[in-house]
């Protein structure tokens, strides 16, 4: 996985954590179980730093798509996008092997292969 994709995955995980920590219902549930959630601002600062490591165009794509999807960066299993569960053409793999960031032709999500 490229360093850009790794940074995007980290950003996506962090975004989910921040979103849940800011969700009053979810935060109350965790706090009632004894888990304090006082460090949201710290996570937001980490997010800013992480976002700066990502190519501007790639980041813009991620930000735009995250308004539509909870998971923008998804895995490919076999030849199937695990975001929309549609098959990918063989050419997509060649593109990924060439080191470019790959998008699902059906839903547009950013793909990663393991």
């Amino acid at each position: 996985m490229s360093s850009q994709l790794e940074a995007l995955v980290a950003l996506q995980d962090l975004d989910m954590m921040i979103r849940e920590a800011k969700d009053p219902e979810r935060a109350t549930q965790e706090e009632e179980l004894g888990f304090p959630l006082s460090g949201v601002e710290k996570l937001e600062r980490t997010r800013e730093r992480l976002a700066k490591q990502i190519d501007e165009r790639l980041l813009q794509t991620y930000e735009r798509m995250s308004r539509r999807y909870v998971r923008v960066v998804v895995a490919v299993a076999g030849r199937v996008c695990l975001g929309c569960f549609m098959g990918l053409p063989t050419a997509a793999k060649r593109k990924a092997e060439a080191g470019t960031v790959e998008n699902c032709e059906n839903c547009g999500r950013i793909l990663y292969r393991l």
Partner: protein
Amino acid sequence: MPTAPSIELRNETYLEHHLRPALFIPELKSKKKSAALEEMVAHLAQHQVARQADALLEVLRQREALGSTGIGKGIAVPHARSTMVAERAVLLARSSKGVEFDAVDESPVHLFFLIVAPLTEKDPIYLQMLAQIVRSVRLAPVRRKILEAPDFAAIRTLIGAQVGNE
């Protein structure tokens, strides 16, 4: 009369169901927070729960930055959802000497339940498991028995009894 899908969901919510012998560390080597997280994540990666250990470790560290999951009385429940997790899993680890984990009561942690889950829109089972863990270890005699249990099977039975008594 309950339908088949609701029975399946009920079974899946059992904490017991997610406790696997392969995901048990009887004695952690690490004594510090960061190293203990690293040791537990390495164990998860070894058992194919984490697709990339480094990414999972980072998200767990960020979760700790949000607030310590050391909830006191020698218990910590580190938990996070990550793109790099293939399936919901619970790792159980013990430390007889204790790990400095910035717990809310500043006591060393002797018992860890590390929960990881894939990044999905909603995962009510994840929260239910979190609640079940917290409730199952709320009594001091149960915590002591878990720490002194001879093997994983005995711990699983103890926890199962607590969850079943809810």
